[in-house]
C-alpha cells in the first residue's frame, strides 16, 4: 500500500485547520513572556474554522472518495462536518470574549479548540476501527482539557476530572468491544467487517458482546441513559461555550459514529441492535425529562434536556430502514435522515440557548433560575430569543425542533414502533412543562422575587450569534427543503453503501 501526497488532497480542509492550530502554538512561543493576545488567537481560530466550513461546502457536490484508505469523504461525513464546523464557529465567535476573560493560557485553549474540530471531522469520516478509536480519543482527551480549562475555578476542575474518569472508562470499554470485532473478522475496515458478519455465521457469537460494549462507549459520548451521569456535572462546571459545543457537535459525532458502525459493520444483524437502541432511547428520554423537572439551575436543566433530546435523536437510528428489504431511494423518511435533520436543527437551538445562558451569566453572575427572573426587562431581545429556542426544544411548529421531531417520530410510526412513538409523545408533554417554567420566569416574574442585580453587558458578538441562531431555527423550521435534500442524500448514501 502506498499513500502519496495526491491521495491526501480530499483532506485539505482538515489539514488547513490543523495548520491553524499549529500556527497558534508557534505564534505563542515567539510572543515572549507576556504571551500573545488571546483575542488574536481567537481570530485565527475563527478564520481557520471558516476555511474548514467552506472546504466542506466545496466538497459537498463531489463524488464520494476515500483518502489514505481510511477516511471516507462522502455526503454523510460532509453533512456532519458542516454541523461540526458551524457549531464550533458560532461558539467561538459568541463565546470568545467569555473564554478569554476566564481561561488561563489562551494559546493552548484556542489551538486545542481547533484540534478538537479536526478530531471530530476525522471521527465522522472514519471507515476503520483504528481511526474511529484514535479520533474519538483525540476528541475526548482535548475535551477533558477544555472542560477543566478554568484552573482556579473549583467547579471547572471538578467537572474536568469527572468527565475524564467517566470518559476514559467508557472508551476503554468501547475499545474492548472493538477488539472482538477485529478478532471475529480479522479486519479493521467497517465494510469488510460487515461482509464477514453477514456471510459467516460461525462468528455470530462475537456480535452481541461487541454491540453492547461499543454502544457503551458511544452511548457515553452521546449521553444515553445508563451512561449519562457525567453530563449534568460536566455541563454545569465547564465554561459555557465548551458546554455548548459538547452538547451539539460532540454529540453529533457520537451519533454519526454509532450510525456508521451499526449500519456498516452490523447491517446484517439489525435484530440484535434495534431492540437495544429502542430500550436505551425510552430510558434516556424518561431519565432526562424527569430529572430536568427538579432543577433550579438553567445550565443544569439544559444538561438534562440534552439527555432527553439524545433519546429522541436515537429514535431515528432505531427506526432506520433495512435497505435490503425496501427501496431506500423512494422513501421520504428512512430514520437516518430524521436523525441528521434533528441534529442540524438541534445545533442552532442548543447553541443559541447556551449562548443566552452565557450572556445571562455575564450580566448577573450566575445561571440559576433566580438570575433569569425578569430577563425580558433587562434584555428583551435575549428573552425573546430564549423563548424561540425553548419552543424549538419542545417542538412547536415553524421551529427547527418540530421538523426534526416530525421526521424522527414519522419514521418510528412508519416502522410501526407505536410503543416508542407513544413514549416519545408522553416525553414531549413532560418536557414542555420545564421548558415553559423558564419562559414564565423570564417574562412573568413572581411579585416577591427581586430580579438579580446587573453587573455587566451581554456583548455584541453574543447578540449577533444569538440572532443568527434564531434565524437558523426558523430557517430549518420553515424552509427545510435544502436541509432535507442534503440529509436525504447523506442517509441514502450510508444506507446503500453495502
Amino acid at each position, binding site marked *: 500500500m502506498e499513500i502519496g501526497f495526491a491521495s491526501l488532497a480530499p483532506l485539505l480542509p482538515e489539514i488547513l485547520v490543523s495548520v491553524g492550530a499549529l500556527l497558534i502554538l508557534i505564534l505563542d512561543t515567539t510572543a515572549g513572556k507576556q504571551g500573545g493576545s488571546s483575542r488574536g488567537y481567537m481570530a485565527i481560530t475563527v478564520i481557520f474554522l471558516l476555511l474548514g466550513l467552506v472546504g466542506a461546502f466545496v466538497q459537498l457536490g463531489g463524488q464520494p472518495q476515500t483518502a489514505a484508505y481510511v477516511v471516507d469523504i462522502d455526503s454523510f461525513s460532509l453533512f456532519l462536518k458542516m454541523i461540526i464546523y458551524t457549531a464550533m464557529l458560532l461558539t467561538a465567535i459568541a463565546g470568545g470574549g467569555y473564554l478569554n476573560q476566564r481561561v488561563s493560557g489562551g494559546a493552548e485553549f484556542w489551538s486545542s479548540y481547533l484540534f478538537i474540530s479536526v478530531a471530530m471531522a476525522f471521527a465522522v469520516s472514519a471507515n476503520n476501527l*483504528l481511526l474511529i478509536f484514535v479520533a474519538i480519543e483525540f476528541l475526548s482527551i482535548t475535551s477533558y482539557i477544555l472542560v477543566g480549562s478554568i484552573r482556579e475555578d*473549583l467547579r471547572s476542575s471538578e467537572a474536568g476530572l469527572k468527565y475524564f474518569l467517566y470518559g*476514559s472508562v467508557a472508551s476503554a470499554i468501547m*475499545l474492548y468491544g472493538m477488539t472482538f470485532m477485529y478478532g471475529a473478522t480479522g479486519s479493521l475496515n467497517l465494510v469488510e467487517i460487515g461482509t464477514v458478519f453477514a456471510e459467516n455465521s460461525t462468528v455470530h457469537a462475537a456480535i452481541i458482546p461487541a454491540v453492547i460494549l461499543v454502544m457503551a462507549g458511544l452511548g457515553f459520548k452521546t449521553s444515553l441513559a445508563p451512561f449519562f451521569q457525567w453530563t449534568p*456535572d460536566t455541563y454545569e462546571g465547564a465554561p459555557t461555550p465548551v458546554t455548548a459545543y459538547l452538547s451539539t457537535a460532540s454529540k453529533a459525532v457520537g451519533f454519526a459514529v454509532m450510525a456508521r458502525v451499526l449500519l456498516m459493520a452490523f447491517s446484517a444483524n439489525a435484530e440484535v441492535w434495534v431492540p437495544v437502541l429502542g430500550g436505551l432511547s425510552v430510558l434516556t428520554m424518561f431519565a432526562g425529562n424527569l430529572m430536568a423537572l427538579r432543577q433550579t439551575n438553567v445550565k443544569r436543566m439544559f444538561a438534562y434536556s440534552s439527555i432527553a433530546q439524545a433519546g429522541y435523536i436515537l429514535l431515528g437510528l432505531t427506526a432506520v430502514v433495512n435497505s435490503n428489504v425496501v427501496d431506500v431511494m423512494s422513501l421520504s423518511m428512512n430514520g437516518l435522515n430524521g436523525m441528521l435533520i434533528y441534529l442540524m436543527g438541534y445545533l442552532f437551538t442548543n447553541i443559541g440557548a447556551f449562548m443566552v445562558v452565557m450572556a445571562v451569566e455575564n450580566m448577573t453572575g450566575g445561571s440559576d433560575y433566580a438570575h433569569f427572573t425578569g430577563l425580558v426587562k433587562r434584555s428583551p431581545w435575549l428573552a425573546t430569543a430564549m423563548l424561540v429556542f425553548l419552543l424549538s426544544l419542545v417542538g412547536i411548529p415553524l421551529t427547527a425542533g418540530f421538523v426534526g421531531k416530525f421526521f424522527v417520530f414519522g419514521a418510528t410510526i412508519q416502522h410501526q414502533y407505536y410503543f416508542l412513538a407513544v413514549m416519545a409523545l408522553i416525553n414531549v408533554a413532560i418536557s414542555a412543562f420545564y421548558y415553559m417554567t423558564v419562559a414564565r420566569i423570564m417574562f412573568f416574574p413572581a411579585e416577591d422575587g427581586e430580579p438579580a442585580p446587573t453587573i455587566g453587558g451581554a456583548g455584541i458578538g453574543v447578540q449577533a450569534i444569538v440572532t443568527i441562531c434564531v434565524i437558523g431555527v426558523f430557517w430549518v423550521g420553515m424552509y427545510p427543503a435544502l436541509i432535507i435534500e442534503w440529509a436525504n442524500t447523506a442517509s441514502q448514501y450510508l444506507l446503500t453503501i453495502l
Partner: protein
Amino acid sequence: MVPLTWYLILAAFVFSAGLFAALGRRNAIAVLMGIELMLNAANINLIAFWRYGPSPAQNLDGQIFALFVIAVAAAEVAVGLALVISVYRNRRTVNLDDLDLLKG
C-alpha cells in the same frame, strides 16, 4: 502452542479487574490505574487475535492497533494526572466522594 482461549480468558480477567477498580475505588489515582488495566486487556486481545489470525505475517492490523492504544493511553494518563493535580491544588484531596460541588 497455548490456545487462543487462554489469552482471551486472561484478557477478560484483567479487564474485569480494571473495571472493578475503576468503578469501585474512591481514589482518583486508583481509578486511573483501573483504566490502564482495561486498556491493556484490550491490547492482550488485539495481539492474541493478530497472532492467531489468518495471516499474521502479512496483516499487521492488530499489532498496529495495539501500538496506537499504548500511545493513546500515555496521552490519556498525562491529561488525567494534570486534571488530578489541578483538583488537588484547589481542594487538597483526590477522593472522589469529596468532589461534591456539582450535584443534583
